């Protein structure tokens, strides 16, 4: 979709105008009191506002969920969930990954209001407006929380970068696209090709 008249787009940004604790001190309890509309997250106690997602962004999420859900259900591996669902990674980190998986052994982390603890796999569709946040603050938050696997999907280039946690940080086995099958550790053998996530865009 090319809108050549577009001038300036907002990106994920610290939401310092929302009443509440000072930046750096937000917790889940404060976060749940926000009455303003919007997609908020707390990383390291800082409240961020994300812009509304695009049509393509949502189409890609839908394809990913369909493929993952099918495989995870056939194999009886766990639960596939999608945004907007809150995950309290830790005291000062509340995020809404685009897609995430909680394996059976960790289903006790799912409560009626939100997930408390780390998912086993998170997937972010890194649109231009969220790319920097997804690569910086959220990658750090996922690594610190011990999320074992993180997929970063580039909706414009139609690529998936797979990150595996090694110690405190992620190692990238590479960038996958087209017919490539993703060498996931958390859901090994998933028979989906990277290009299938972009079938509708």
């Amino acid at each position, binding site marked *: 979709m090319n809108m050549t008249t577009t001038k300036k787009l907002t990106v994920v940004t610290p939401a310092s105008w929302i009443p509440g604790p000072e930046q750096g001190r937000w917790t889940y309890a404060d976060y749940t009191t926000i009455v303003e509309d919007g997609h908020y997250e707390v990383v390291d106690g800082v409240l961020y506002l994300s812009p509304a997602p695009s049509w393509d962004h949502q189409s890609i999420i839908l394809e990913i969920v369909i493929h993952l859900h099918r495989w995870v259900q056939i194999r009886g591996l766990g639960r596939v969930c999608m945004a907007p669902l809150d995950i309290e990674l830790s005291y000062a980190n509340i995020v809404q990954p685009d897609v995430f998986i909680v394996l059976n052994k960790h289903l006790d982390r799912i409560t009626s209001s939100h997930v408390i603890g780390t998912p086993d796999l998170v997937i972010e569709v890194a649109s231009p407006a969220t*790319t920097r946040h997804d690569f910086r603050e959220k990658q750090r938050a996922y690594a610190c929380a011990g999320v074992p696997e993180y997929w970063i999907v580039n909706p414009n280039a139609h690529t998936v970068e797979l990150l595996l946690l090694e110690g405190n940080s992620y190692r990238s086995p590479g960038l996958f696209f087209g*017919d490539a099958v993703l060498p996931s550790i958390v859901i090994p053998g998933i028979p989906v090709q990277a290009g299938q996530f972009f079938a509708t865009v």
Partner: protein
Amino acid sequence: MTKGGHTMKRVEKLSVTTPATWISGPKQGCWIYEDYAAIAENGRYEVVDGVLYMLPTPNINHQKIVGEIFAYLQSFTHITRSGKVSLAPLDVELSYGNVVQPDIFVILNKHLDRITYSRVIGAPDLVVEVASPNTARHDLCEKEDAYARAGVPEYWIVNPDACTVELLLLEGKFYRTLGLYSGDALLPSVVLSNFPVQVGRFFVAL
């Protein structure tokens, strides 16, 4: 796909910027410019925080965009007599233990003494990285941190697939984003004020 009668295996995986632990030299975390300059192996390398990284080979769209942006910056700095523009592969030693090759960078007149025969020593005034999918993570994590620490006042991150530019300005120790620009937008650059080129022009050759 065939070329010259040979079947070419379809590439489905690209390598990304990655720590180059196989290159002989000091242990990771301890590399400095002199070690880097002594590397005999082919390839593009950078040192960030003493860690040696190998960069993947750029693709054709990356190079086209770098060419366009360089041409506009070159004309602008020439006409306004404001400074010098250079492009990769040229070494910039930001600080001890940080040696990078920005895709494009600008050094204003008042800082021309930072240019030496072999490399730039110190911070450029503006760096531009065309963040292809296989370098984006490095450009946004390690390099952004390195540019911020070195005091590079302005950093443009170009998304070659979405045809956007994100403009970052240094505030204290971190960058603040001014937003994402595309199409007819003009970049509100502080280092090159009144830079008159619409962002969409960077991508016309694609």
